[in-house]
């Protein structure tokens, strides 16, 4: 099969690494060759962070280049907009509609652009924007945004509920398992 590519983007500290860990587990369970590439260090301090998840029969490069991503899973609206050029034509963006102001916006030297969802849709991108923060809070914690987005992603990929649940159980601490499962299901049904 052709290699599939998902980019997970967000703001350092939002929990993007857990999302990639979960996906890696899921894909390995299916016997695919998998590569998951992360960047640690300075950008995790509130900077723009990117994780690449790739799977197929044989995956070489650990990174996803411009025009290659089947899907971008974004934890924040501006970050989705930042990486649209990494999408394949007609690719999909699943985005948490939450806005987190970057420092140049807070400091008043830049403006957070308006109407990003519409502008992305105008590029023939399939944009699925959900308020993942509200759903995560409904599930019990604002930290469960990653599981809400995973739930949303599950609608577009051919994995069974059992496979997803196994990957979730393997990736989150038992103490927060039920809350995370709920967040996942809220993302699926929202």
């Amino acid at each position, binding site marked *: 099969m052709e290699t599939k590519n998902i980019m997970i983007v967000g*703001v*350092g*500290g939002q929990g993007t690494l857990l999302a*990639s860990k979960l996906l*890696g*587990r899921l894909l*390995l369970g299916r016997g695919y*060759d*998998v*590569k*998951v*590439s*992360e*960047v*640690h*260090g*300075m*950008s*995790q*301090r*509130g*900077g*723009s962070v990117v994780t690449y998840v790739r799977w197929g029969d044989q*995956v*070489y*490069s*650990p*990174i996803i*280049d*411009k*025009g*290659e991503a089947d899907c971008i899973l974004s934890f924040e609206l*501006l*970050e989705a*907009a*930042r990486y*649209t*050029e990494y*999408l*394949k*034509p007609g690719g999909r963006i699943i985005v948490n509609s939450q806005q987190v*102001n*970057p*420092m*140049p*916006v*807070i*400091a*008043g*030297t*830049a*403006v*957070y*652009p308006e109407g*990003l969802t519409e*502008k*992305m849709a105008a*590029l023939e*991108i399939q944009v699925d924007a959900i308020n993942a923060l509200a759903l995560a809070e409904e599930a019990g914690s*604002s930290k469960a945004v990653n599981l809400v987005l995973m739930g949303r992603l599950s609608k577009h990929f051919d994995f069974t509920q059992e496979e997803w649940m196994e990957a979730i159980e393997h990736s989150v601490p038992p103490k927060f398992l039920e809350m995370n499962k709920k967040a996942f299901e809220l993302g699926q049904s929202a």
Partner: protein
Amino acid sequence: MKTLMLGNEAVARGLYEAGCSFVSSYPGTPSTEITECAAKYEEIYAEWAPNEKVALEAALGASLAGKRSFCAMKHVGLNVAADPLFTISYTGVNAGLIIGVADDAGMHSSQNEQDSRHYAKASKVPMLEPADSAEGLAFAKLAYELSEQYDTAVLLKMCTRVSHSQSVVETGERRMPAQKAYEKNPAKYIMMPANAKRRHPEVEARTRALTEWAETADINRIEPGQKNTYGIITSSTCYQYVKEALGDAYPVLKLGMIWPMPEKKIKDFAATVEKLIVVEELDGFIETHCMSLGLAVSGKELFSEIGELSQNVVKEKFGVPVPQNKALGEDIPMRPPVMCAGCPHRSIFYVLKQLNLTVLGDIGCYTLGAVQPLGAIDTTVCMGASVSGLHGFVKAGGEEKAKRSVAVIGDSTFIHSGVTGLINIAYNESNSTVIILDNSITGMTGHQQNPTTGYNLKGDPCTKISLEDLCHAVGIKRVRVVDPYDMEACRTAVKEELEAEEPSVIISRRPCALLKYVKHPGPICADPEKCKGCKACMNIGCPAISMENGRVKIDNTLCVGCGVCEQLCKFGALGAGN
């Protein structure tokens, strides 16, 4: 068992399977997780050393004692460890010794983009270069065999993309090599001139022997291609970009050992292709080697010395169409890293900026004090350079500079190499003021313990080195501690110590706001009625504070209630929450 592993984790697994018993490292992105993962194996003794030089010397000691040993560092850490490296090349080892070094092309989290491969050539120590996690595991094991067979330390060179990518590995069992007895051998281990003169020819002979090994080694493999218009030599993550971009279009010589490189194998490969092209990141290291063999080769004229490569870059240079894409065509504001909400470093930088001081900075989270709106740092060079640099700045600049400049350095960085600079300040008597930003952890690399925290790498309580006692012991009489959340106390301390007619140290002490044990009072309450929109609170660059309709707004998901902004508001619009 097949599992997904980070490159660094796979190296740690390889160490474990090869019977490594001793690991000593200093943390540095992207190398840190090798040591953290190694520490999870009960059979491996693992520690954080104060710096890379100490770590490598400790690892050598363990090797001499007969145990397979390891130490890891980032590329700039190898500069610190370069002194022992060049002479370990002469002494060789007893049990196997591997030095892990992780480069950071693209500078995701580093102050320079140096190419560590030069160290292998310069120190005449062999270097292996894995291209993914499976090779990380396999090469770690192979490196021990080479180390013992050829009586040499072996460099294992990682890079951000190999260190921080997870890929599939198959794990095996741990196999312990026979314990090697230590035998006194002055001619081999005492590197005084008479002995070192006899060792140097051994080093040269070893490199020739390893070159012979490289000619037939499996890890330097030729993969056939459909057309011989081009022949590609590559290694590490660049191999992955080449295969991703070109598949098997052209033959590829993948080098797993990057020093010493084979000669005949490369010449023979070159003879089978029309044009030889080297695809490598950073410097033209393989390319230069090919040139020295008298081969016509292209490399850096196609692929930049600057930053990372990718599959699209390779496609472009080989005339393969790159995928179409659509950018938003919108000005997307940058999102640079920032100090976290509640970071204890923030307020001290605000005070330094208010006082309009020259601030010699150092390496750590607090380098972010350079970013606007704080913009409080003048220099950042390398670990420890703030303290030693301040001494020169004050000595050369005189009284005026002494009263208007400070050094800032973190607790871990101070122990790493700040303390030697402080000794120079005390000994050569410069009227310097050093601020140690003690957040009780090594922050930037992701919360590693250090000699001042009272815990070791395995998380067990251990000797805690007192910064106050250490500063006193090296001859600094004026040492005082302040709480950085109390801005007035910070201002007073800085002013008084700058005025003092002798060197002084201010320890700005409060644990990192992200540490799990730190209890926070909870978000600050903003009162839009009292807010006049003066934006004084915006000058500290806190990600939790923004303005909405001209009035202050606190992001409750980020704010921990440190209260620093409260001290900036003259109108009482910011106060403790409920």
